[in-house]
């Protein structure tokens, strides 16, 4: 095993208070089944899964209840056994926002009866079949975006230079990967080796931040035990956002993922440790993705800890499981404190993208300050991990200057929130950039509609002109023919008259 410690730092980034100790004192709570499950069918970017069950139908744990739509998409499974109560549209939290999605509501029966109809051999020889199995097992990136794993593996199969396993977990409060690495390192490493085989990666780097000594220790042992020469553990500095996909690749390899492209375009693929664990559970035990580890933390919850949560568990059941709220709770946040967002209610379900639920107490949420004018100090630019100029973007966003926004690289903003933290004028830059991205998409959509309308209008004009010309030409031809016919008749009559006249003259002659 290669063991590397990185001293190189990533571009920009900041050091933040980790706030992870509270949730790592107790082991992961397993075996929790809520009375109700609300399983979203559209938990990630790409297309929604298509339901294949009916209301009233009995389902077992791990039974497919929706099949993947057009790629990128994944299947969705019942997270526990029970009966389908409704199939309806509800609000679900995804990686970056709340979204209305078709959901399958299941009343659980508490038996947690396993589905027996799965494939006999969950991990056959062929690479294509294995990737298809990953898709049908509903496995999605468990780092927080829930992007369909099969699509990601497919894109890089055969061209992969390095498989990067992301155990950085740089965002404050979140500790689900840390706990999983402490408790199930052997399964994670086995899953990593399976993924490396699948994409034929010659090298594998498992990156873990320095502030997780126990996870590092456990993973080192597991990698040594596995004895695979491709595997290396990398201890990386604790800087936010080192765990961002693009940032991690740059930190480890020195190569920058081109703007607008995926890491696969330069031969890298990044997978979260939780995803590796899910792959191992599929391959070794035939289990589809029906649960994930969620960190429930914050000063507003009685017993902060990590819980293995069936996907679709309404959040209030999860909070109950952790001792309920404390009286000083002020806000519920989905995701970490930096890239997460506030939830409007606690009856929303968890999804594959739910890595963390923070029940924030007073004093834990960023106070809202009065915003002052930008003084162009440039602090935001120095911490931006995407090397952008947030102060310039801010001006362009205020002016809705879309050309400028594009030139300044708005699209490359990963919305990490570093600029917000350092801004001495308390400007909430990331929020503006999110708004600007939405406005930009709207603007682009209008431009495309205008261009297409113009093109179609021109074609219509041409077509109408052609029809008119054809009609006129046909009319002219008909008129000419009629005139010619008329002329011929007149000539025939004139000829007849002439003949008659001649006959008369002949007759008159003696």
């Amino acid at each position, binding site marked *: 095993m290669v063991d590397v410690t990185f001293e190189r730092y990533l571009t920009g980034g900041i050091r933040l208070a980790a706030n992870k100790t509270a949730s790592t004192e107790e082991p992961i709570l397993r075996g929790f089944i809520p009375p109700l499950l609300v399983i979203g069918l559209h938990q990630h970017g790409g297309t929604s899964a298509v339901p294949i069950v009916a209301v009233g139908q009995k389902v077992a744990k791990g039974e497919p209840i929706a099949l993947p739509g057009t790629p990128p998409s994944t299947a969705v499974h019942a997270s526990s056994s029970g009966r389908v109560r409704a199939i309806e549209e509800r609000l679900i939290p995804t990686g970056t926002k709340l979204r209305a999605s078709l959901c399958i509501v299941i009343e659980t029966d508490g038996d947690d009866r396993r589905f027996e109809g799965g494939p006999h051999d969950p991990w056959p020889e062929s690479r294509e079949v294995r990737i298809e199995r990953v898709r049908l097992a509903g496995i999605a990136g468990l780092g927080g975006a829930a992007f369909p794993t099969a699509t990601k593996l497919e894109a890089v199969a055969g061209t992969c230079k390095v498989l990067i396993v992301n155990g950085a977990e740089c965002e404050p409060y979140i500790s689900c990967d840390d706990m999983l690495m402490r408790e199930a390192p052997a399964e994670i490493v086995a899953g990593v080796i399976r993924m490396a085989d699948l994409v034929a990666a010659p090298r594998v780097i498992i990156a873990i931040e320095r502030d997780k000594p126990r996870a590092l220790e456990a993973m080192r042992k597991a990698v040594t035990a596995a004895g695979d020469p491709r595997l290396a553990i990398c201890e990386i500095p604790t800087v936010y956002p080192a765990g961002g996909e693009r940032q991690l690749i740059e930190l480890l390899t020195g190569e920058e993922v081109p703007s607008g492209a995926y890491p696969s375009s330069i031969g890298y693929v990044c997978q979260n440790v939780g995803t590796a664990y899910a792959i191992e559970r599929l391959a070794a035990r035939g289990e589809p993705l029906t649960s994930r580890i969620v960190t429930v933390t914050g000063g507003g919850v009685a017993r902060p800890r990590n819980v293995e949560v069936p996907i679709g568990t309404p959040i209030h059941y999860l909070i109950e499981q952790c001792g309920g709220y404390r009286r000083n709770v002020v806000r519920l946040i989905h995701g970490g404190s930096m890239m997460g967002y506030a939830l409007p209610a606690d009856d929303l379900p968890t999804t594959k993208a739910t890595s963390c639920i923070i029940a924030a107490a007073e004093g834990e949420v960023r106070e809202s300050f009065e915003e002052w004018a930008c003084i162009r100090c440039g602090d935001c630019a120095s911490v931006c991990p995407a090397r952008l100029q947030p102060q310039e973007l801010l001006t362009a966003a205020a002016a*809705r200057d879309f050309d400028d926004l594009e030139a300044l690289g708005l699209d490359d903003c990963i919305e990490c929130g570093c600029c917000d933290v350092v801004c001495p004028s308390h400007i909430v830059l990331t929020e503006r950039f999110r708004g600007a991205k939405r406005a930009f998409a709207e603007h682009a959509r*209008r431009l495309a*509609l*205008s*261009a*297409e*309308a*113009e093109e*179609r*209008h021109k*074609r*219509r004009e041409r077509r109408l002109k052609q029809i008119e010309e054809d009609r006129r030409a046909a009319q002219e031809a008909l008129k000419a023919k009629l005139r010619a016919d008329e002329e011929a008749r007149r000539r025939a009559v004139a000829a007849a008259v002439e003949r008659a006249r001649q006959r008369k003259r002949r007759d008159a002659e003696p």
Partner: protein
Amino acid sequence: MLTAVTVLTGLSLALAAALIAASRWLPERGDDAVERIERLLPRIQCAQCGYPGCRPYAEAILAGEAEINRCPPGGESTIRALAELLGREPTPLDTSLGSASMDRVARIDETLCIGCNLCARACPVDAIVGLPQRMHTVIARLCTGCELCVPPCPVDCIQLVPRHG
């Protein structure tokens, strides 16, 4: 001395001839100006400005015959862009002209449609399909929300609805 005079005179005569020829036979640049104005319009041909289409309106603006605040679907942003291009003062949108908006699409109530085909003939971008005496429908992705299909419908079965949702 003589050489210099001959060369310079010859040169100026030749260049003058070239300039005269160019101004007479090369096309005028007026078209380009119209096109630049037209680019800033939504080009959905709704005709709510009172001109038969976006290009005629652009020509009228260039000729100084029309105000720049007569494009309902373009709204404030179009007015601002036109004002900047032409060096005129931006004025508020003339809201009396209409309410066409690219955020909406036409929808045909399929229970009422009698298949008269009048709407399809009115659509400037061929976004309505249907055979005579058969139910018609709007291709929402192509519809620009220009409202031109609404008045010809004899049974009032066309409505404009928000584009998404």
